[in-house]
């Protein structure tokens, strides 16, 4: 228990000391996970919207698979991405392995199902409200989808947040495809894993506290945005 107090103290002094290494790791964590979130939204939101407005045979099965994929184990994703990005793998020519790009790649795959499945739910609820009006206006499916995505934008922020939270917190995928290389692919979670394996538990915990505060900050920012939107009745 004493190490928790020690960790808080250490976390504070780490942040205040302005140590470049720490900021580098924090920066990379944010850059990688935010990039993955943006990419996952670019892929997952249209999928979620398309399924939300479509009725087809086997839709129930698709939903089950999508929901199941939300629980993809990061380490499995990491392994699959490693096998593809490895020099001897089909995408080896890209030279992405052990770069931040590979980490973005893996995290994107990890959270696309989350974004698709959660946005499907959000947009289906919104569509229930809009559907008759859309049909009266003779909107095409594409127009319906883009309208739902735009009008659901603030609700979808929460979906993006869920994806970001999962990405920034996972270690299994990035440690395999990134390699936890100092000054290149070391992020918060892999640094925490490393310090734990060195037995430096207070430092590991201090990094964990900083990660938590970061996540809180991102969440607070999004929440503030949503509240502004709510005041305009856009939510």
């Amino acid at each position, binding site marked *: 228990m004493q190490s928790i107090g020690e960790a808080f103290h250490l976390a504070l002094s780490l942040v205040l000391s302005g140590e470049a290494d720490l900021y580098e790791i924090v920066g990379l964590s944010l850059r990688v996970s935010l990039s993955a979130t943006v990419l996952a939204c670019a892929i997952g939101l249209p999928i979620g919207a398309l399924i939300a407005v479509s009725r087809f045979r086997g839709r129930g099965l698709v939903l089950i698979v999508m929901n199941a994929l939300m629980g993809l184990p990061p380490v499995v994703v990491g392994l699959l991405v490693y096998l593809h990005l490895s020099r001897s793998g089909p995408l080896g020519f890209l030279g992405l392995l052990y770069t931040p790009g590979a980490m973005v790649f893996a995290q994107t795959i990890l959270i696309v199902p989350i974004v698709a499945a959660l946005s499907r739910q959000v947009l289906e609820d919104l569509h229930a*409200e*809009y559907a*008759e*009006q859309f*049909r*009266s*206006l*003779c*909107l*095409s499916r*594409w*127009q319906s989808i*883009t*309208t739902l*995505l*735009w*009008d*659901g934008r*603030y609700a979808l922020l929460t979906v993006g947040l869920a994806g970001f939270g999962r990405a920034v917190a996972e270690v299994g995928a990035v440690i395999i495809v990134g390699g936890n290389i100092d000054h290149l692919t070391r992020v918060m979670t892999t640094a925490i894993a490393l310090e734990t394996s060195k037995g430096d538990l207070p430092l590991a915990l201090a990094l964990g506290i900083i990660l938590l505060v970061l996540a809180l900050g991102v969440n607070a920012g999004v929440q503030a945005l949503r509240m502004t939107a709510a005041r*305009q*009745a*856009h*939510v």
Partner: protein
Amino acid sequence: MSDLPITAVPPVARPRDEAAMSRPLLPLRVSGLRLAADGAALLDGVELSLAPGGCTVIMGPNGAGKSLLLKMLHGLLVPSGGEVSWNGTSAAQATARQALVFQKPVLLRRSVAANLDFVLKARGRDRSRRDALLREVGLLHKARQPARLLSGGEAQRLALARALATDPEVLFLDEPTASLDPASVLVIERIVGAARDRGTRIIFVTHDVGQARRMADEVVFLHRGRVAEHSHADVFFPEPRSQPARDYLAGRIVL
């Protein structure tokens, strides 16, 4: 300055066959129209003919099937049996040339102006008409406000402006003024009346006998899923021919 994601989208191919466009939508012929849900017939054997021009008010007690009939005429509901024929026009065509104002307006989560921009853009209409439409419904001064913060009456006026933005040949209204303040009711009735005077065919569902008297050129009275009476307004109000309509107008409970 576009906050519409739709701007990048090419216009959708819509049935725009010139020959079909030039053919008027009316007269409307409805024969043997039936709508059943869970085995119960909600509408059964509706026969109706509507001529071009004017305002038809559909009346009837709760559960008579007024809204359902409106939605089937507009093509939002598929009949279980029978036929709706808009002068031989295809169903998709007919829907595209009509507009419906719902009892509860469904407004997009955007500004008042953006709600109109959206429809004008989606339906390939001249976007410079927006301010004129807003002025007509008295909302120009609220153009920048979020649409979903409008009062009930304002929201319904915006919904009406949106319907008019598509230049409908037929305008359906489903109890548009239920639970609105009298000032908004008057504005909406005035705008609908003006549209009728410009040649838009109006089909108006209402519960309100006073409103029906003010608006109707003719009345279709629905009772238990059928047309109980279809009369000219001059006949219907002073001397309804059917018993349910007589009871209804006399203020008696009609089941």
